[in-house]
């Protein structure tokens, strides 16, 4: 849980300045320092970015009356429906979450190698 919150906070602040891929070094470093297992590294990183991106997307979508997310839903080929914006927000959060998951696991594995030496 701590790891999860740590990644969320750092990722939120750094993404205000840096491109999206800043989540990779963040996940690597955080998990390299704090993860207990490969599974927890993956899950914490994945969920942290997933939740962060989802919350941020939903916040932006609400203040926009979902105008844009509905259009992007159509662009992505979703059938017209009133809940499309939620689907779009969920889909949007996946690439970052997956990337972060693998990055976090890499961070954990990296520490393993060094700590065993």
């Amino acid at each position, binding site marked *: 849980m701590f790891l999860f919150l740590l990644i969320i906070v750092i990722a939120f602040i750094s*993404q*205000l300045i840096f*491109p*999206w*891929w800043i989540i*990779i070094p963040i996940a*690597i470093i955080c998990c390299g320092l704090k993860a207990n297992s490969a599974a927890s590294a993956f899950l914490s990183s994945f969920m942290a970015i997933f939740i962060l*991106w989802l919350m*941020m*997307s939903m916040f*932006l*979508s609400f*203040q*926009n*009356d979902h*105008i*844009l*997310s*509905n*259009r*992007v*839903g*159509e*662009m*992505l*080929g979703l059938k017209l429906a009133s809940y499309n914006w939620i689907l779009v927000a969920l*889909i*949007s*959060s996946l*690439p*970052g979450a*997956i*990337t972060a998951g*693998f*990055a976090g*696991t*890499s961070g954990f*594995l*990296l520490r*393993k*190698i060094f700590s*065993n030496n």
Partner: protein
Amino acid sequence: MQGTRLVKLVVFIAITGGLAFLFNSKIGDIPPLGKFLNPFTGFWQNAEDVEDITNQSFIKSGLQDSVRILIDEQGVPHIFAENEHDLYFAQGYITAKDRLWQMDFQTRYAAGRLSEVVGKKALELDRYQRRMGMVYGAEAMLKESLKDPQSKLIIEAYSEGINAYIEDLSPRDYPIEFKILNYKPEEWTPLNSALLLKLMSATLARGTNELAMNNILAKYGEEVTNDLFPNYPFNEDPIVPIGTPWNFNKDTPKPLISPSPLVSSIKNKDKDKQDFLLSSRLLTASKEENIGSNNWAIAGNRSSTGFPILANDPHLDLTLPSIWYQIQLHSPTVNVYGVSIPGAPNVIIGFNENIAWGVTNVGSDVLDWYKIQFKDDTHQEYLYNDKWEKTSQRVEEIKIRGEKSVLDTVYYTLQGPVSYAKNQKPADFGMANNIPVDYALKWVAHLPSNELRTFYELNKAKDYEGYRKALVYFSAPAQNFVFADRQGDISITSNGLFPLKEKRQGKFLLDGNDTTDLWVNRIPAEENPTVKNPERGYVSSANQWPVDQSYPYYLGWEFGSYERAHRINTQLETMHAADLKSFEALQTDNYSILAENVLDTLVHILQTDKGLNDTESKALALLAKWDRFYEANSIAASVFDTWYNTLNRMIWIDDFASDEELMRYPSRDRTVHLLLYEPTSPWFSNDSTKLTRDEVVSASFKDAIKQLGKSYGEFGNWEWGSVKKTHVPHLADIGGFGSKVLKVGGSKHTVNAMSESNGPSWRMIVLLGEKPKAFGVIPGGQSGNPGSKFYDNQIATWEKGELNELLFLENSDLNQQGIIKQIELKK
């Protein structure tokens, strides 16, 4: 143990790196997913807060003074500047803020630079634009405009303003299309503004039928060609009322030379020339007859206000972001409201305290093709006046995303660019179908011009004199400028640079060697067709012939058909106390003059056919009592429209379409005449079977009913609105960014000229008076951002045929009715 861990680590790092790379790259048409979908810099940042009413303030070093921009409830900016430099600077700034991607994309389209952002698939389009001399023409225009200190100031200040906006952008702020296509905005140059004005010429005055006409002439000879493609229509209602005297100079200039068009050469059986006439092997394409717009003005003695009222609705291929951008420009020297072209300064159609004006296209012949005989395949020399002259070369570098640039050499003769020399023309590129090979293009849009000045002068004009003075600067694309002022004058002028030609010069392909085929002079600007305060109390245009046959100059042989114009004039004739309501009704009038002309005859023929099935009888009964209005819920309109189009095709397809060479159908005017008055004409037969007019009329009706049944099912589903499917697509056709299908009436030939995605791009009505009162609507909105509520908020109003009252402010007070926020630009 350590080894497995290392392998695992390497695998995970490789996957992480792979994902990072994958999600940061554009693959095919899929945007880079991580970049595009993340809510911090991706598309979510374009989701504008719908409640946003925060005032903003920016410091801009290029300004001479501070500028205040008020934004109204429709998202329209009202700019208040202390001097002209700052006014146009702010116009550039605010336009970029709303429309940057559209400006960028349209400029690239015009300049043949799309491959830079979308890759190789746009290469032929890019080559085409360059080979048609788009950049060449824009450069000539810019050079001429920069010679004029006034135009220079405007175009440069406007560019500065756009760049002042761009320089503050970080990637999260880029318009969404930049994120989808994964590229960056670039610095704006004055050439871009010139390119956008050239794009107007490309849209409105680049149509060319010469090749098709030549093929027809070669196949059928002079008599048939003259009969089916006459030089003046049977039905006409010209812009300048018939009988208006031409008070021109006694010694009206004649073309300096007396050209001998290729028609005569054919008669002389000139072997050489005949060969090249026959050698053009091209696919069939027929030219749209309906590029068009309406405008009119009525005099004070016919209006309910006692002052003139003016209306305009330019018809274009509709897109989102909207073609036009509404704006009010206010400085100590000007106060004008209207629509502008995103990327070009000034108001193009609009009004100020004193005057109002609007435009429709003039379909005069301003583009010709000259056969060029090169000395050899190096294209270094060509024959002119039986002497070898040197070509000049322009090397076009077309940059292609992710690939090496293509260098394309275009040869220029004294006539213009040879668009496609032998072996240069692509086989499968539709836009080039009507371009003859080894011909030079002479096009008015290539000549130096300063159209900006026209709009600058019109924006400030106070009266008729000011209007006439402004028009002199305008070359292309020629427009019917309608005008009204609060002193009570109304006028219309078919205005632009019209080549001084011999009759029918350029109806067919011309000979580049022959000095007499070349036109060099223009019709004197002050002798362009014009009328002021005609006795009938109104002026109007709808792309029809500007004049009757008494006009001493040759303008072209074919213009838009007369139907819309005739309906407009008929309705204006009945108005004795015109007001907003009656003008609104006329702009959205769906009455079909075509149906008025032919329906009775066609129905009568069908009624003698005893072999109709149930659906056919039902459809015929409906047609027989149809009121001839193309309303959205009319089934009769769908039947008539499908029937007429099928009939037209059945009459001509066997004679004027071929897989081998480009041809075209005779005009609607000619076809209607054939149907009504030449029932025994051999043209009704096709190659294999001898058919009478009545048989073709019956067969086409049954075929039309079959088509409708196949496409739309039951009879009850055939409502015109569903058959026509009017919608407004996105400029780059991105799914979800266009409009839904709109339920609107009208057709190409009704005043409410509405087809699938072509129609009124701006409807405006101005009631002149002590203070002008104006109304308008665009089929879209002010913002170019699909994530803004202003992207398409006017579509519903437009669909209903209603107009918004336009807010014409007198001062920059933030606390006035209708203003939601302000943007301040400080020096």
